[in-house]
């Protein structure tokens, strides 16, 4: 390749190889040619020695793994010594921890791992996304919180239609826990249309970016969100997701759960381990899922009347709604009485018709449609149909 070159050009060409050569990254022929040159060129030989020596320090042991729990330990240690004047509200903690955990996973991804495809199931199907696209999706949905907090929308406006007008779809069946008089499940395309459209626009917008830039955008937004949340510690601001409206404090817990679930989806795709949420955070997620459960049950009654417990009409009309005792074990242990019937059945009360016991993490995974409701290990007692209804309603809380 150097035929016809002057000696000076040859020197420069070979010299540019010195870094690669020091890393053992030259093909044998080029390496041999460079090594012959080094014997006659003191300038290159001196640089080669310096770079080789530096490269020798690269072959170090891997650093100790940074345990996930360390973050909380360190922050607690610091805050015990100097209490924060502007603390993060308790409802913001799961989101802070889960976004930090996902970011730590992403920090370790190599270029090939950014090309792996993660599977993200929800109750309407399974999406297949690369890690950067998963981040885009998280960023787009987190954008609803950004809007509620007065931060910029990460999603570019839709072409042709002004974005704010498009977002004025009334939050029909989602704003209030009580379902409308005639329970129904809107067509899925309709209900989730805005979420999927926003995600699609953001993915198109970030298509030209490197994975690290995508990670940077996502991370910056997560930091900005928590910072704004610290200024609104009541957490009452409504967040309109299009398919549901949640107060900010619930929206943050909801997003923490989503971040955990999809972080684990990414981890699975790249074969990395991924820790479950800390017990106190898992507990907040379980509480939210249990509170949203009546909405999901209403959706299930609309879509699949056979799951309503008693085919035809809700059982116990006139005598009040039925209740189910939900016992969660594991680190987020607790016990709840879940109303099974809609408001039309009257106020819930009386002996629970059934009891079920399941693990808190599994409950959250089921709510994310990451478990099969028919195969989940559940302790059951009492009305099996009611238990099955709860198990089949939970995945309806998932979305694209």
């Amino acid at each position: 390749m150097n035929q016809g070159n002057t000696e000076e050009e040859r020197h420069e060409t070979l010299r540019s190889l010195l870094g690669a050569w020091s890393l053992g990254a030259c093909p044998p022929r080029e390496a041999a040619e460079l090594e012959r040159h080094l014997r006659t060129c003191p300038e290159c030989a001196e640089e080669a020695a310096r770079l080789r020596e530096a490269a020798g320090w690269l072959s170090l042991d891997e650093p100790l793994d940074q345990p996930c729990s360390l973050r909380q330990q360190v922050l607690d240690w610091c805050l015990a010594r100097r209490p924060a004047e502007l603390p993060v509200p308790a409802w913001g903690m799961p989101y802070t921890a889960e976004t930090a955990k996902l970011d730590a996973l992403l920090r370790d991804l190599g270029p090939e791992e950014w090309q792996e495809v993660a599977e993200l199931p929800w109750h309407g199907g399974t999406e297949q996304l690369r890690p950067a696209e998963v981040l885009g999706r998280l960023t787009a949905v987190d954008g609803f919180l950004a809007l509620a907090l007065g931060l910029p929308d990460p999603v570019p406006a839709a072409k042709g239609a002004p974005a704010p007008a498009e977002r004025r779809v009334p939050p029909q069946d989602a704003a209030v826990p009580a379902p409308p008089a005639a329970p129904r499940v809107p067509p899925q395309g309709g209900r989730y249309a805005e979420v999927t459209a926003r995600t699609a626009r953001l993915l198109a917008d970030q298509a030209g970016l490197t994975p690290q830039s995508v990670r940077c955008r996502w991370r910056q937004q997560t930091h900005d969100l928590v910072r704004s949340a610290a200024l609104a510690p009541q957490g009452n601001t409504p967040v309109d997701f299009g398919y549901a409206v949640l107060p900010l404090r619930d929206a943050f817990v909801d997003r923490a759960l989503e971040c955990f679930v999809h972080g684990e989806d990414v981890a699975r795709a790249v074969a990395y381990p991924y820790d479950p949420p800390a017990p106190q955070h898992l507990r907040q997620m379980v509480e939210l899922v249990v509170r949203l459960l009546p909405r999901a049950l209403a959706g299930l009654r609309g879509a699949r009347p056979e799951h309503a417990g008693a085919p035809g009409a809700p059982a116990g009309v006139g005598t009040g709604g039925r209740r189910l005792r939900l016992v969660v074990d594991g680190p987020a242990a607790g016990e709840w009485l879940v109303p099974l019937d809609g408001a039309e059945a009257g106020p819930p009360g009386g002996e629970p018709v059934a009891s079920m016991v399941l693990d808190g993490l599994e409950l959250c995974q089921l709510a994310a449609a990451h478990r099969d409701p028919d195969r989940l290990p559940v302790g059951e007692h009492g009305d099996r149909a009611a238990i099955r209804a709860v198990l089949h309603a939970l995945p309806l809380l998932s979305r694209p």
Partner: protein
Amino acid sequence: MATQDHSPRWDAQLQRRLARGEETALGELYDRLAPMVHGLAGRILADQAAAAQLTREVFAYVWEHPEDFDPAQGSLRAWLGALTHRRAVERLRARRAAEPFPGRGTGAAEEEIRAVATAARMQYVVDSLPQPLRETIAVTYYDGRTYQETARLLGISEQAAKQRMRLGLELLATELAEERARQHGGEDGDDGR
């Protein structure tokens, strides 16, 4: 992220937020610099519990004394790196001094401490390289690729790949020379940076 790591403006803003007692600032500081602090502490002390303890102390120090950082003297990252390095080496010296047979020669023990400290320092420098340089070196060296394969993998020209490797190693070599000069400058010449 690499640019933000090195932005003096970000450092100064974060310092103000830490001084105001914003918990989110502490969290952001941790997220950005804990891998460096914990990694450096772990490499020097080679002990999980000791590294975690030192990480706690370093972050508590910054949280309690954010005013000690002087943006005019370098980045927050460099300051925290120097602080971690100094405290870890102190800890290592104390541990060695408490060992049952110190009589085998303090010279040898001191030599070992130096080697460990240099190795940790170099890894810290590798970790602090600008992201494109670090990535190019990592995928080449740790995965045993040729520069042509690396160029294809990263979607850059072969020329760019060669340049990045050379520049990255050049930065390491300079740091290595400085570290050695510092260590030979005096027994207690280790003032971090």
